[in-house]
Structures are given as C-alpha cells and as structure tokens.
C-alpha cells in the first residue's frame, strides 16, 4: 500500500506511520456485509410506495455512502496520503463540473428565458 500511497521518504513528517494502517481482513468482510445491507435497503425501498416521496434523495444518500465506503476502505484512501484524496477529489469535482456545464448547455434557452424574466 505504502508505495502507491507515497514513497516513505517523500511522506510529510508524521504521516508515514498513518499510511501503513489498513483494515484487517475481518474489517473488510464487515464492510462488505454493510455494503450488501445498504444495497438490499436500496432495492427494498424502491418497492415501498410509502417512501416514494423521499425515494430519490434516500437512494442518492445510500449510493453516496456505498461510494464513500469503497473509496475509503477498499481503495484505502482514508489511510493513504491526503494528496491522493485530493487528486481523486479533483477528478470528481471536474466530473461534476462537466455535468453542470453539459446541463447548462442543453438548457441554454431555458436559462436565458429565466434570466430575462428575472430582469
């Protein structure tokens, strides 16, 4: 892990020890069970009419929690050099930027109409 995390000699002072802490196999299994439970809940709430009003936000929260668990524990980002987390976060932020830009491009006329009405 540490080689992907960073070269130990390049590690900022005090972070090299942290970079070696990784979950045990038992913890990996516990996280996998948790991920399975979240997936089951995601699918189950899809079929519950009473939750229809909060279905989309609930699904997004559950999906985001699965995403964070896999990235943090299975990809070890929680335990690795914070610079790697920033690199990955930069990709995510740019991906979000692409999403917003594409949406704005596709809804250009609606946005212009809305701004005209506001003015």
């Amino acid at each position, binding site marked *: 892990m540490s080689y992907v995390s960073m070269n130990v000699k390049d590690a900022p002072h005090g972070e090299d020890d942290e970079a070696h802490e990784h979950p045990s196999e038992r913890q*990996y299994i516990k996280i996998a069970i948790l991920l399975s439970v979240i997936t089951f809940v995601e*699918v189950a709430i899809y079929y*519950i009419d009473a939750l229809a009003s909060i279905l989309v936000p609930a699904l997004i929260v559950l999906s985001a929690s699965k995403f964070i668990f896999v990235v943090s524990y299975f990809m070890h980002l929680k335990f690795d050099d914070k610079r790697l987390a920033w690199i990955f976060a930069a990709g995510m932020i740019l*991906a979000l930027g692409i999403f917003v830009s594409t949406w704005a491009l596709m809804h250009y006329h609606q946005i212009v109409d809305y701004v005209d009405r506001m003015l």
Partner: protein
Amino acid sequence: MWMFLASDCMFFGALIATYMIYRGRSEAMGAGPYPSELIDIPYTSVSAFVLLMSSLTMVLALAGLQRGDLRASRLWIFATAALGTIFLGGQYFEFTEFYHEGLGLTTNMFGTTFFTLTGFHGLHVTIGVVWLLTLLFVSLRGGLKKDDSLDLEIAGLYWHFVDIVWIVIFTLVYLIPYDDMASESEPHASRVVGLAQSMLNGLF
C-alpha cells in the same frame, strides 16, 4: 494510477451527464421501448451485488499477497475475475434481452445513452478481468510474490473504481424511477416476493 482514475472520473462524468440530460426524452418523443418496459431491477440488483462482492475478493487477494500467502492470493484473484465474468455475462444477457425487445443503439435517446454508458463500463470490467487473469498467470509462473504486491494493488484500485462507477450507474440508471414507472399495476407484495426469489436464484 490515481491520476488515471481522476481522469476516468471525468470520462464517466460526461457519459452519466449525457444520460441524465436525455433521461425521459424518449418518452417525450414517443419512441419506445422505454426504460420502465425493459429494466429488470431484481436481475440488475444481483449483478450489482456480484460486482460489489468482487471488491471484497480483490482486497482479500491483496491482503493474502501482502502477508505472503500466495495460495490465498491466487484463489481470491481467480474469484475476483470469476465474479467480473459473471457480471459481464449478466450484462451480455441484459443487452441481448433489450435488443430482442426492440431497443438498439439508435432506436431512441434511451438506447443511445444507455448502451454507451453501460457498454463503456462493461469494457472497463472486461479490461479488469483480462488484467486479473494476466496477474493470475504471472503468479502461477512464480512472478507475483509478496514484494510485488504493488502490481496487484494497482490492479485493485482500477477494479474498485469500476465498482464505484457501477454504484452510481445502478442508482441513477436503474433505481431512480422513470416517469411512466408508476403505471405498473403489479401489487407490491408480489413484487417483493419476486425480488427475493430472483436474488436467491442469483446467489445459489
């Protein structure tokens, strides 16, 4: 590898953005078949579960190699590749079913964006399976030992990335209901029983 994953985030960000922007447009234009007529949630749930569990086998393979247990490492690498192959088989079956229902790449906006997004994800999984099988072959030839765990870790990061992309696709493409989803007349109870049966059939 992290730089590559960050750039791949942008790649899938563009594909997912396109899918979400055109979501529902096929219905508006009256060009079926529509997602709600085709998407099988229980079936895809099993596929999602299979890919999720392949992330567990991947970390177990790496943990085995890092403690010098080559036998365990090989076993878990094989299990990961096998689960990836099962996922790909499921995707092939799904694509075939959709095609037989009349959905092609150019049928409507759903077909174009769905096949492009999930097809590129499937391509990533295929590359991951080939990569893992190559590492397994190298390991069996004695070329993957405790000191070489970096090689497996890099493959593992790629594999987990493929998994998190599917986590997003599973929610946005499959689980978030489409507008005409509400027209389903099947009672809840029978749908829940059907879901449980499908998940059990998929597992055993």
